[in-house]
């Protein structure tokens, strides 16, 4: 593999694979893997399910790589995010950034993973060991249903 790469993957991913063949000018390679953890906010997690919006993700990924290159002198920016069902310990997101020197590589890798978490149209549902599940992501309260509003008004 040569050059940049960013995308969704329904198959297992590793940062090591992304770090291969980064070119002779790359004196530093920083890799990061986000993996599925067995606990979250005090609850026992059994597995995760990721949903994604592929068309929009492609554009957001392109934008993240472009901004990483604008802000940092790097030789390769590669990032993949999984979709589908992932078991504990599986890699959900993999990043590899190569640069002439370590400073740019660390900074750009950090930028990429933070931007992916904040911007990529991907959603995770946690399934817990007790059989329940929930979608993550903070959301403002629901717009009230008309009957709710009437009931509240009558109280």
């Amino acid at each position: 593999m040569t050059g940049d790469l960013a995308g969704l993957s329904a198959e297992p991913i590793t940062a090591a694979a992304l770090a291969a063949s980064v070119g002779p000018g790359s004196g530093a390679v920083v890799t990061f893997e986000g993996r599925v953890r067995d606990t979250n906010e005090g609850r026992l997690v059994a597995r995760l399910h990721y949903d994604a919006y592929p068309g929009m993700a492609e554009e957001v990924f392109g934008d993240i790589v472009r901004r990483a290159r604008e802000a940092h002198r790097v030789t390769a920016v590669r990032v993949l995010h999984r979709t589908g069902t992932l078991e504990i310990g599986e890699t959900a997101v993999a990043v590899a950034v190569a640069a002439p020197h370590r400073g740019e590589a660390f900074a750009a890798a950090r930028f990429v993973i933070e931007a992916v978490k904040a911007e990529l149209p991907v959603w995770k549902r946690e399934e817990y060991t007790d059989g329940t599940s929930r979608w993550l992501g903070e959301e403002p309260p629901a717009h009230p249903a008309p009957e709710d509003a009437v009931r509240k008004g009558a109280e």
Partner: protein
Amino acid sequence: MGVTIDRSVTVEVRLFGRYRELADGPSITLELPEGATVAGLVRELHRRAPGRLPERPIVAVDHRPARDEARIHPRSEIALIPPVAGG
């Protein structure tokens, strides 16, 4: 004397994450008046799925978050975007 002809457009709204539970499938189909805006589309969604959506959910038009006053064109790709939660 003028005759008013109500024209409507059929819009398919793609659903993701928790919003998939608003419908039985991966999208919800709405009838909107011609020239409707994002704000009008959200009002129709609130009518169809009362109490199930935030007051101002993010609506993407052709892969980009759209403003309330943006017009819905018949060939636009419309999607409802829950708060992202990747990584």
